[in-house]
């Protein structure tokens, strides 16, 4: 696809969404429903505290649609996207969801922007809408086919990540542990599990520090941490802000603790940006990532394909795609896989069948996103790897092999 065609595509997808939004004031829903394409909806946090992740993640879904349509769509039908900004406000995302439904009652998939939205939409999803829904969230309770039969997680859950990291701490002989997390649903999700898991592993949880998701007063939080004097500090519930400042300040305070993090706060771009300001404070920062980093694409044909496509279509492509992009892309890839299985089995495309297909994925070669072939277990893919940031070569380097939870 050339720049020209990418532009045309954009006109078709989002432009249509706008026109439909205006048009839908005038026509009954029935008339609009006769679509000859797969419609996927998405809410992305393009504004609000996690805007950076949303803005850099959005191309993940746009490129997915373009690339899939370039190669003939799914089952012969093209995909149309209805994308909206949620501002990381769960209720706005819910409104977006219903709006997408009004426009396309046979929505094939929805992409949610947050743990909050996924929980908000779950009851109605179960009882009425029955649409396959993925999201940016790795919240633990979403990966539960009995309570959340239409939602899935495109990697391990936050609990799983905590499990991996705590195991690492135990292996390293860590005795004193502290949690630092944001006061959001996102931040609090795995904490109860973490407490219990630390106990089981014989690690003393010496301190818990709750902060704002952005713009927190780092100094005072670090003062508390310094007193607790933990060997390991596990941070969760952040994307671009707070966590780097906490590490930098802690280092300035002379703290030697090992910092650990989870998926969303492991982006190289952020780590580089901070390191340019504060030197090598972030050196050794460690966390779990379900995927490969994009620079590690030797054994990842899917990454090479993305690289090639972006080189051809995106004049601003810096040669690197952020982890958030990969997450969005993986979520869509899982849906596409489920679609293909369903269509191949010649079953009607609906939420129930898609979720059954998703659950049937076994030893799937993800093209290198995941290190090893993966299976969907309990609506999630419980695999991940421990990486640590290295300020010298500005890369997150693997510290473990691919771990199956």
């Amino acid at each position, binding site marked *: 696809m050339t720049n020209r065609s990418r532009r045309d595509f954009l006109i078709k997808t989002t432009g249509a969404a706008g026109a439909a939004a205006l048009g839908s004031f005038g026509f009954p829903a029935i008339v609009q429903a006769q679509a000859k394409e797969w419609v996927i909806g998405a809410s992305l946090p393009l504004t609000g*505290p996690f805007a950076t992740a949303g803005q850099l993640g959005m191309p993940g879904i746009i490129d997915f649609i373009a690339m899939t349509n370039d190669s003939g769509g799914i089952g012969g039908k093209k995909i149309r996207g209805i994308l909206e900004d949620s501002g990381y406000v769960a209720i706005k995302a819910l409104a977006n969801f219903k709006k997408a439904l009004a426009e396309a009652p046979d929505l094939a998939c929805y992409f949610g922007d947050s743990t909050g939205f996924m929980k908000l939409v779950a009851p109605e999803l179960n009882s009425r809408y029955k649409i396959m829904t993925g999201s940016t969230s790795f919240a633990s309770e979403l990966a539960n086919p009995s309570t959340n039969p239409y939602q899935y997680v495109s990697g391990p859950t936050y609990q799983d990540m905590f499990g991996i990291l705590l195991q690492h701490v135990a292996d390293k002989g860590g005795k004193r542990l502290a949690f630092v997390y944001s006061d959001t649903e996102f931040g609090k999700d795995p904490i109860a599990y973490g407490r219990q898991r630390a106990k089981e592993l014989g690690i003393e949880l010496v301190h818990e520090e709750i902060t704002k998701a952005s713009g927190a*007063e780092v100094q005072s939080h670090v*003062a508390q941490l310094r*007193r607790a004097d933990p060997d390991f500090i596990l941070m969760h519930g952040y994307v671009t802000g707070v966590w780097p400042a906490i590490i930098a*300040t802690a280092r*300035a305070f002379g703290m030697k603790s090992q910092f650990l993090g989870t998926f969303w706060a492991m982006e190289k771009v952020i780590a580089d940006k901070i390191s340019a300001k504060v030197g090598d404070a972030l050196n050794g920062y460690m966390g779990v990532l379900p995927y490969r980093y994009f620079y590690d694409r030797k054994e990842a044909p899917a990454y090479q394909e993305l690289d090639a496509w972006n080189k051809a279509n995106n004049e601003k492509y810096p040669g690197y795609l952020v982890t958030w992009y990969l997450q969005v892309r993986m979520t869509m890839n899982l849906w596409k896989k489920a679609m293909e299985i369903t269509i191949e089995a010649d079953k009607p495309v609906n939420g129930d069948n898609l979720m059954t297909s998703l659950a049937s994925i076994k030893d799937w070669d993800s093209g290198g996103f995941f290190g090893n072939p993966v299976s969907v277990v309990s609506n999630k893919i419980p695999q991940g790897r421990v990486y640590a940031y290295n300020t010298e070569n500005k890369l997150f380097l693997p510290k473990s092999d691919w771990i199956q939870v």
Partner: protein
Amino acid sequence: MNELLYIVEDSLTGLLTGGIYALMAVGMVLVFKATRVVNFAHGTIMMVGTYFFFSFSLLVQQLGLSFWVSVPLALLSTGLLGMFLERVLMRPLLGQSVFSMIMVTVALISVLEGLTILIWTSDAQYPPGLFPLQISFIWEAAVNMQLFWGFVIGLSLFVLISIVLFLTRIGVALRATASDQATAYSMGINVPGVFGMTWMVAAMTGCLAGILLAPLNSLTPSLGHLGLSVLAVIILGGLDSLLGTLIAALLIGWLEAMTGHFLGGDYREVMPYIVVLLIIVIRPYGLFGSKEVERI
């Protein structure tokens, strides 16, 4: 023993933070003194000023100049913004109810925050600190030198403003305006000019407070919300008393630190509001404010 040290350490940090709060609050107090309007958007103007600083710091870096050059540039542009806002939004409402003016400042929060997001996105930015992130020990208590210097600057500015206000002719004009607009007018004082100047100075002090705060909190469009908790400071200080504001700022800084110490960090942010509510119920005119006799 350790616990005592920690309390001392936290108290110190709290008081130092209070110095920066004082710098944030002084702008609100000045504007209130002169115009009887509590500027809810003061924190937001501070935030915008800090973004100015951030942008200028990138610019001067490209030009190969010292980043210190960006400080006066940021102060000046924020000052002009303050003056502009007064001219365009406040002046048309002169003589009308104070409620309208206050609501305009509330609305201004939305406008400025929206503009900031449009221009700089809501991504966290890390403008350079005026002072390096460095810890010193006073006795055994750790002190963040950024905070310390922030306190020193905040306090000196506070003193400077007090001197100007009480010992110069300009101060006389401002106090006259504060005391009675109509009479100040009939003394030949350019009252709208005083308003504009007050807004300018307030915006500049806000900008400076933001520059000092940003390395401690990182810079996001929500930095402005700190301005709302500074309401606690000015209410506690009695709205128009400079000395009261200074003491209240230190007190609130210290109380926040103690709340953080005893109840946990997440309780800090609600503490100023509880103080506000208590003050309003118990002593509405603050610690140092004067009660007005109503004329019928």
